């Protein structure tokens, strides 16, 4: 049939039917504000998720109990041990007498990290430059284990840095790349972009598709279709309110991140906002696409919930690193818009990189936005079948 994406149609719609349009946007807000659960999902859930993830991460890595096996017992090992003991994240449980005890202490759950120095640690360090510390972690919870192992190795690295300052000896130290961008050891960092991606996707895709499906279910869509209102108007009036809400959510999440979770925006704020707006557009288009396929609220909810949210949380790199996935999942991960968004936010917000470093992500997300908005407008049915 005929297609409506042409500027001659869109322009007069925007200019002359502003009043109709605003009424519709207002109506959409009524729908949102009059349903307590919609309200909660839209405005409270983002805050809750941010805080939940934020605080969960910071309590998880706190109070890590550790033991030391130190056959050397020299200046250097004591200095490192003291640094560890002073750190707020670690609690010292005691020295071990033999390496055999390591297994035992893990099994009893008395400690989840053991620091093992080699013999004559200080001598080796000064003379051969080959002093070794082994960090053995209880891997039953690999996520936390890898986090606090990183913390511990960072403490060791900071000791090495102290030494370097004192002795003016150019040690060849290779700091952990990830820690470089996470100097205060906040686990929250890696979660902020993920939660942002998830929330924006949830609000945009789920709410748009559900609200259109609701109109179909209650029969109001029939009346709208049998009216001079153009499909593009109906679509826009659905999209705009959720666009605004997403902007509000974006603002709350950034404020929370900076002022409550102490995760600053290292890079350019305007860059971060631009990419977020593009991502919001992509998500809205996805919602429209879903709504063009279904006519029941329930199904819209299931599709956007299960088919969309699940891969976003599982495959976008928010929880598991994409590099470790089987190739087929990596391909899927690359199709998911949230993957690119999360990467971009990490780069801008945490690593403080500039536009050229996120050019790829910008390009991919913009292409996705254009294609999906086009497809969903094209697919929008102005008849009932």
């Amino acid at each position, binding site marked *: 049939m005929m297609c409506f994406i042409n500027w001659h149609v869109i322009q007069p719609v925007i200019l002359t039917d502003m009043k109709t349009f605003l009424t519709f946007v207002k109506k959409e807000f009524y729908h949102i504000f009059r349903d307590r659960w919609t309200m909660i999902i839209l405005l409270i859930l983002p805050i809750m998720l941010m805080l939940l993830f934020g605080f969960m991460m910071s309590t998880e890595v706190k109070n890590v109990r550790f033991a030391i096996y130190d056959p050397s017992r020299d200046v250097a090992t004591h200095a490192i041990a003291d640094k560890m003991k002073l750190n707020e994240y670690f609690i010292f449980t005691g020295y071990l007498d033999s390496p055999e005890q390591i297994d035992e202490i893990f099994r009893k759950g008395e400690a989840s990290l053991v620091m093992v120095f080699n013999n004559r640690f200080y001598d080796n360090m000064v003379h051969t430059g080959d002093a070794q510390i082994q960090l053995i972690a209880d891997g039953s919870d690999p996520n936390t284990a890898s986090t606090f192992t990183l913390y511990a190795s960072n403490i060791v690295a900071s000791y090495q840095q102290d030494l370097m300052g004192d002795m003016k000896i150019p040690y060849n130290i290779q700091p952990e790349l990830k820690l470089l961008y996470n100097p205060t050891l906040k686990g929250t960092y890696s979660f902020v972009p993920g939660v942002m991606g998830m929330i924006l996707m949830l609000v945009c895709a789920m709410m748009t598709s559900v609200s259109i499906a609701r109109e179909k279910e209650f029969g109001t869509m*029939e009346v709208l279709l*049998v009216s001079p209102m153009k499909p593009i108007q109906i679509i826009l009036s659905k999209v705009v309110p959720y666009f605004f809400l997403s902007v509000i959510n974006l603002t709350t999440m950034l404020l929370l991140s900076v002022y409550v979770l102490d995760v600053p925006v290292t890079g350019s704020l305007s860059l971060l906002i631009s990419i977020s707006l593009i991502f919001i557009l992509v998500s809205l288009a996805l919602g429209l696409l879903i709504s063009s396929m279904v006519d029941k609220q329930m199904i819209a909810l299931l599709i956007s919930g299960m088919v969309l949210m699940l891969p976003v949380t599982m495959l976008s790199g928010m929880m598991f690193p994409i590099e470790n996935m089987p190739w087929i999942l990596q391909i899927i991960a690359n199709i998911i818009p949230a993957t690119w968004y999360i990467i971009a936010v990490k780069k801008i917000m945490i690593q403080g990189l500039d536009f050229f470093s996120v050019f790829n992500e910008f390009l991919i997300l913009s292409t996705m936005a254009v294609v999906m908005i086009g497809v969903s407008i094209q697919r929008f049915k102005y008849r009932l079948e």
Partner: protein
Amino acid sequence: MVSLEVERGEIFGIIGPDGAGKTTLFRILTTLILADNGTVEIEGKDVVKEYKEIRKEIGYMPGRFSLYQDLTVEENLNIFAKVFNTSIEENYSLIEDIYKQIEPFKNRRAGQLSGGMKQKLALSCALIHKPTVLFLDEPTTGVDPVSRKELWEMLKRLKEQNITILVSTPFMDEASMCDRIALMEHGRFLQVDTPEHITGQFSHDLWAIRSDNMSVLLSDLRAMRSVRTCFAFGESHHVTFRNNVSDIVNLEKLLKSKGHSSVLIEQTKASVEDCFMDLTYKF
């Protein structure tokens, strides 16, 4: 396959049970779905090619009172006014009559209205842009008899404003409210005519028979060879006879001999429902 022509200012009823195809027909007429075959013109415009023009001129009230349940009466009306680029004030005179009855509840949410009030609000919404043709799909389903009667009175008054009204209903007794009707079943029109012509063409003499034991009377009558059809019809059974001229005196005697008392037999005029059943009954 159906064919119909509706004149301006006419109330045209499409009458048939659920599943007859009324809603599908209405959706084709209102440009919502495409017919596999055939053409439809509304006000001289083709429903396929000129659907945008048609959508500006028609009013449509779908079967399940499509209203925003969480918006108030006034907000609903306002929305639908805006959809058609008009305002409540502009065409208030047209809906005044109907809207006045629900105006006291204008701040109540549509979801909390009774069936009758929803019906009035939906009708107001469908009328707010002063359509030339009004399509009402089963406006009286799920609505009590009082509201049904009120609706038909409203439609009569709209007709006076020269609005063409197409209305569908499963209630056969509402046929008499229409200028012309189409009896519809299984996607086909059984007959299209004025209700008077349809009932006037009823093929047989129709008798209303009652006694003090109606359920036994039903089976007794059906067992008689001379009886062509016999259906319960409210307070009496409606009966047609094979040879058309029947010996009523004998029939009364026969029924009394079977133990019926207070037997009453009188000739009656066929209703649209009688006609519908006669057209659909498989002998």
